[in-house]
């Protein structure tokens, strides 16, 4: 009996974590479930083909009831990184950080330093947008060819993650058809920036990634 109890307590957090890991949702112990946990990253051509859209989502698997309480963390800097000469080192960054209900944006600009530590490039302020409250329609802002949004959105990610976990743990031999979207009905906190391609590089392709960084 005691052993059963012990194993239940052992298994409970594993089950919970196992259910929630996905695209990058809760990918690693140091960030899982916290305000710096990146769940997903998208870069695509905008409705205006001269522009690209950068999207990052944080704080995954918010239920509708939890979404109204979710906030961006003022200690967490979101940084989109752009390498436009093929060495996988950032040549440009776009930074976003919240202050008192507004998301502030900086760049694209060459950062003071590359790598794991950043300072906010205040001389390159590019715009700001009121963070959309849960239940309101999307508040957007535009400045100098760029557009900005920050707030709760439906999680655009879709996958039968529960069945994938079963397969990895040896409890299933394959996916179901049709599968079940583990992320259906859940929300994330999103930051979306639309940028003219001319601000990012000359031609060809760029390498991009997104980082979350916390204030020291």
């Amino acid at each position, binding site marked *: 009996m005691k052993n059963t109890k012990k194993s239940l307590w052992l298994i409970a957090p594993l089950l919970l974590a196992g259910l929630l890991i996905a*695209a990058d949702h809760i990918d690693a112990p140091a960030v899982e479930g916290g305000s710096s946990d990146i769940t997903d990253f998208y870069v*695509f051509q905008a409705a205006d083909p001269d522009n690209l859209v950068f999207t990052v989502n944080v704080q995954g698997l918010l239920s*509708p009831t939890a979404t109204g309480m979710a906030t961006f963390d003022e200690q967490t800097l979101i940084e989109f990184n752009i390498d436009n000469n093929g060495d996988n080192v950032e040549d440009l960054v776009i930074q976003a950080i919240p202050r008192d209900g507004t998301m502030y944006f900086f760049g694209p600009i060459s950062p003071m330093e590359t790598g794991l530590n950043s300072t906010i490039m205040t001389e390159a302020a590019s715009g700001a947008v009121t963070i959309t409250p849960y239940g309101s329609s999307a508040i957007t802002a535009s400045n100098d060819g760029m557009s900005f949004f920050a707030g709760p959105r439906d999680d655009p990610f879709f996958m039968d993650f529960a069945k994938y976990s079963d397969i990895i743990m040896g409890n299933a031999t394959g996916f179901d058809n049709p599968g079940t979207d583990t992320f259906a009905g859940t929300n994330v906190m999103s930051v979306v920036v639309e940028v003219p391609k001319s601000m990012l590089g000359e031609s060809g392709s760029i*390498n991009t990634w997104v980082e979350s960084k916390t204030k*020291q």
Partner: protein
Amino acid sequence: MKNNLFSIFTLLLCLSILLTSCSNDDDNNDYMMPAEPDFSGSYTQMDQMGRPAVNTVFVSSDAKDMFNVTTPSDQQSEFQSMFESNLTALSPAYANPGDMNALGQDAAAFTGLLATDVLNVSLEGTTTFYDGTNILTGRNLSDDVITVELLLIFGGEDFTENPSLSDDHVDANDKDFLTSFPYLAAPW
């Protein structure tokens, strides 16, 4: 006694996992905000992401935090061999010498591509993770990236191997995306 301590520890672990999702900003409420926001200070990396699911699938459990603080230009040398071991352990599609994916990559070449975890984006036209023609030119909201990755992991040279593992049969989001900014659907 030891068992009790153990239970308390695991209970705390459960609670901490449940509670870390509630970010708390209350500390900022009891002083006046300055007229100009304060953006000073140094910010240090916690998490990063390029392509979807890479850290989750290819990085071993005890290295996931390290992967998140390894700059992309160092990831190839530090993680490619781990990626290759985990890929061949996971998928029978790379079991035999000469086995490749539908991009013509063997396990070393495929993990060599993935280990540098950046999202390649075209500045000149179609952006998609894979649309049947274009590959790795961006990531659209509607791209079925998981099925693409499952096909490249399990599907073999022509996407026909291990059919029960190479498609999760969830092909689209549960809400329609918007055709204009901010593109993502309103929350539930």
